[in-house]
């Protein structure tokens, strides 16, 4: 049983979670306005330090991620057979990790950048929106359903020295900085494209069944003009929400 499951089973918020912290803040007399102001003054800014020797192959990072996923699933399962199955999956992954080559030569700055990008795209990117949703949900439970997080909230930011830390590393310079920034931008855009593509596949609402409001129509028109995607000429008439999907 995980900490979260245990907390839920006794009807208490998980210690240190948003519900627990917000409950404590409200109990201390902080109303919604005071909480909003606190958020405006709060910044979590984890920074990735540069450690070239710790660059781990993406293959092994994915392997660790599969082990973690199976482990969480096993902890959440109450079915003994299913638990055994997850343990077998972990056994397979541990065996694969053991027989996978590590970096055979000194990792390059580019290897280190790819290491960082793994965390950026596979860990931070999916979790960041969830953090804000969980925070807003917790705040609404405490301060009412009308509570909204302040606009332009800069609560969570990430920094990185990777590819740019020139202190004692002759392989780092203007070229690695430019390469790193370019790779970071590209990977985030790739993540957005993938998400939009997924949304496009899911959002199959048709104009014949759903009223499209003027605001959405105007937005679609603007996208159409800005993005010039040929696909939309086919779908605009029947499926407005899908007409701006990326190619």
């Amino acid at each position: 049983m995980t900490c979260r499951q245990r907390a839920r089973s006794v009807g208490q918020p998980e210690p240190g979670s948003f519900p627990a912290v917000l409950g404590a803040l409200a109990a201390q007399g902080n109303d919604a306005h005071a909480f909003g102001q606190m958020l405006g003054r709060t910044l979590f800014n984890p920074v990735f330090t540069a450690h070239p020797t710790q660059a781990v192959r993406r293959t092994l990072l994915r392997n660790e991620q599969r082990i973690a996923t199976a482990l969480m699933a096993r902890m959440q399962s109450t079915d003994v057979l299913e638990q055994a199955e997850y343990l077998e999956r972990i056994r397979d992954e541990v065996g694969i990790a053991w027989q996978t080559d590590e970096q055979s030569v000194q990792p390059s700055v580019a290897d280190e950048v790819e290491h960082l990008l793994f965390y950026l795209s596979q860990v931070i990117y999916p979790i960041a929106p969830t953090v804000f949703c969980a925070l807003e949900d917790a705040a609404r439970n405490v301060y009412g359903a009308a509570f909204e997080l302040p606009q332009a909230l800069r609560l969570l930011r990430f920094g990185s020295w990777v590819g740019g830390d020139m202190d004692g590393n002759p392989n780092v310079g203007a070229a690695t900085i430019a390469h790193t920034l370019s790779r970071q931008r590209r990977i985030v855009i790739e993540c957005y494209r993938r998400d939009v593509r997924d949304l496009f596949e899911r959002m199959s609402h048709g104009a014949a069944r759903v009223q499209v409001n003027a605001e959405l129509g105007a937005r679609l028109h603007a996208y159409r003009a800005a993005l010039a995607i040929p696909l939309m000429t086919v779908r605009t008439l029947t499926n407005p929400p899908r007409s701006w999907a990326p190619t």
Partner: protein
Amino acid sequence: MSDDDTLDADLRALVGALGQLLGEVLEALEGKALFAHVELARLTARARREEDEDAQARFGRLLRDLSPTRTLGRAA
């Protein structure tokens, strides 16, 4: 038993199960000799943490005697 104690017991059981699994994988893939060596290192390291006075010296000898090849688990 408090909730925290139960949680600790659950986590200990899980860590124990994963440790055993790792040992089984090592033995299956690399043989009994390597497994025995890893197990000896693990038990000596634990004794060292538990303030066994000789364990520090034994642990030092164990590490000194390891060649890079053997450390990487590629010993025959």
